[in-house]
């Protein structure tokens, strides 16, 4: 991907070789974003949003994250290197919020504002958190499911896990909305496939074989949704599938009609709002404790519309 960032990287590398070390202009804020990941398309979309805000507000943004979401110590090394650089503000998506608190405290002591993004930090250090309201997003999935199955019947949930914040919120948001608003719909099974496509496929097949009357399944993240779609294909079922997030496979499945539609977070918005909040903090503006970065429902009818195209990724 040859973007401006890549170019900047090459220029910085050149600057390194010529030992120049480009001096940063006075008003040009330097904002360091430390994310939970880097290679995954979701994080690249967050990065794209951050870059967009950087261009708009005329600030410099760096974006880094560990190779995978288990490398808590590598993330701390990135955070301490960012601190040593002396940025004007820091954006941080904690892998383990407890482990990061001493370093975040250092940032606060040095007068560097901290903005949390994607997932919160269990402390009052971050000035705000830019994140998806997962409970509301899953409730919207429940409304769409109810609409598509005609307001009655049995449904199931294939969730990605029972411990992470997003796993809990999406499951509860969906199940609670059904319980509160749709008395004729019954959630007969909630199972966990670790967000793994294959595992979710097997789970889906067993749910479908055990519940022949089933009308629909909600897959709570990208891997779960693809697993549900695969299971549906293998069994030859015609249930309604609602997914979450996006990927090439999920977009294709929606175009083919295997998945009826999906909720997408707004990763671009998460990146954009994080940088925007950092700039606002640097200008001394007060921030709301949580910035809801929004979510959308997309299906075959609006998948190619500009507003959906801007937030989904392949």
């Amino acid at each position: 991907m040859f973007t401006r960032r890549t170019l900047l990287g090459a220029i910085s590398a050149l600057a390194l070789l010529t030992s120049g070390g480009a001096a940063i202009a006075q008003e040009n804020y330097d904002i360091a974003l430390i994310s939970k990941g880097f290679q995954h398309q979701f994080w690249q979309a967050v990065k794209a949003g951050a870059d967009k805000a950087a261009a708009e507000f005329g600030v410099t943004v760096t974006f880094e994250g560990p190779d995978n979401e288990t490398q808590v110590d590598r993330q701390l090394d990135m955070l301490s290197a960012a601190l040593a650089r002396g940025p004007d503000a820091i954006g941080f998506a904690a892998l383990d919020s407890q482990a990061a608190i001493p370093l975040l405290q250092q940032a606060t002591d040095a007068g560097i504002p901290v903005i949390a993004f994607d997932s919160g930090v269990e402390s009052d250090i971050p000035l705000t958190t830019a994140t998806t309201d997962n409970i509301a997003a899953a409730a919207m999935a429940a409304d769409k499911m109810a609409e598509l199955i005609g307001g009655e019947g049995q449904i199931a949930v294939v969730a990605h896990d029972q411990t992470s914040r997003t796993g809990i919120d999406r499951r509860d948001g969906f199940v609670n909305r059904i319980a509160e608003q749709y008395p004729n719909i019954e959630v007969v099974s909630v199972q966990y496939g670790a967000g793994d496509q294959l595992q979710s496929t097997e789970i889906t097949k067993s749910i479908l074989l055990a519940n022949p009357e089933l009308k629909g399944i909600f897959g709570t993240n990208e891997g779960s949704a693809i697993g549900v779609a695969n299971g549906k294909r293998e069994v030859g079922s015609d249930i309604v599938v609602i997914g979450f997030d996006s990927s090439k496979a999920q977009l294709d499945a929606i175009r083919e009609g295997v998945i009826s539609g999906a909720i997408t977070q707004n990763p671009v918005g998460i990146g954009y709002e994080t940088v925007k909040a950092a700039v606002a903090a640097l200008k001394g503006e007060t921030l709301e404790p949580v910035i809801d970065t929004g979510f959308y429902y997309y299906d075959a009818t609006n998948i190619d519309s500009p507003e959906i195209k801007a937030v989904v990724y392949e």
Partner: protein
Amino acid sequence: MTETASPAGKPGLLAGIRTSGAYHRLLAFSGLLVLMVVFSLASPNFLQTANVLAILQATSVNGVLAIAATLVIITGGIDLSVGTLMTFCAVIAGVILTFLGLPLPLGVIGAILAGTLSGLISGTVIAKLKVPPFIATLGMMLILKGLSLVISGTRPIYFNDTPGFNQIALGSVVGQVLPALPVPNGVMILFLVAIVISFVLGKTALGRYTFALGSNEEAVRLSGVNVDRWKIAVYGLAGSVVGIAGILIASRLNSAQPALGQGYELDAIAAVVIGGTSLSGGRGTVLGTLIGALIISVLANGLRILSVAQEWQTVVTGAIIILAVYVDILRRRKL
């Protein structure tokens, strides 16, 4: 630190290896210095005390792992399980301290014993069952990864109920004496491990056999030495060193993170190789490995401080590894 020694070699050859070992370390050390000078010139933030301490802190876990890997690699073997074994040891510490509520020293001892035991198992599988080290430790890597997840119930184990646990890596005994230089304990532990293992390699029978196994295992066997026993001992020692790394990372994160660890073995092996230890065995030093681990950390930190995009950081690190080994090959051709 002690010199490389090759007990199998004749005096003349021995002297040659001694000088070449020193030469390589000098080379690696100059490489480290060049990197530091370049980064210092490029950014005034690089050579700040706090940042240098952060670099050392970032080196401590990988450094200890790399020292363990050095032991095994000198015998001509390889240990792919160091990353997940580190996590396993951290989880064992979590079980002892958080689940069972036992006192701190027992947690530390338990983690190190778990490492030793696992190392002895790997060593036995390799020496007695004749499974190649690559396969044996690949298997152990997966077994330990799975066991960590099973034992912890796939959730991090926090050490909040063990006050002082995070001081093992994060506290600073040096800082109490020299307030201006609060070197974290984790870094001092790394140096301590380096000194002890250097001593073992240079001055003990175990050290001599470690090199001998890597130079010519068959010759050692034919001279009537119980090769299997020494090999198992080397893997056991490496395992206990990994146990120390497990304590360090758990202390730094104040938690045992059960999913962490896979991939860390590659950074450890990279540090060993940059430090001039030959993957074919028989040659290597702890000091070289330490310098190798520092080069990796300095590079990562410096490129981050210069705001180099992460994609390019990875490219540069890869190029440095190849360059380091190529320089080593050039040097050996000249011998």
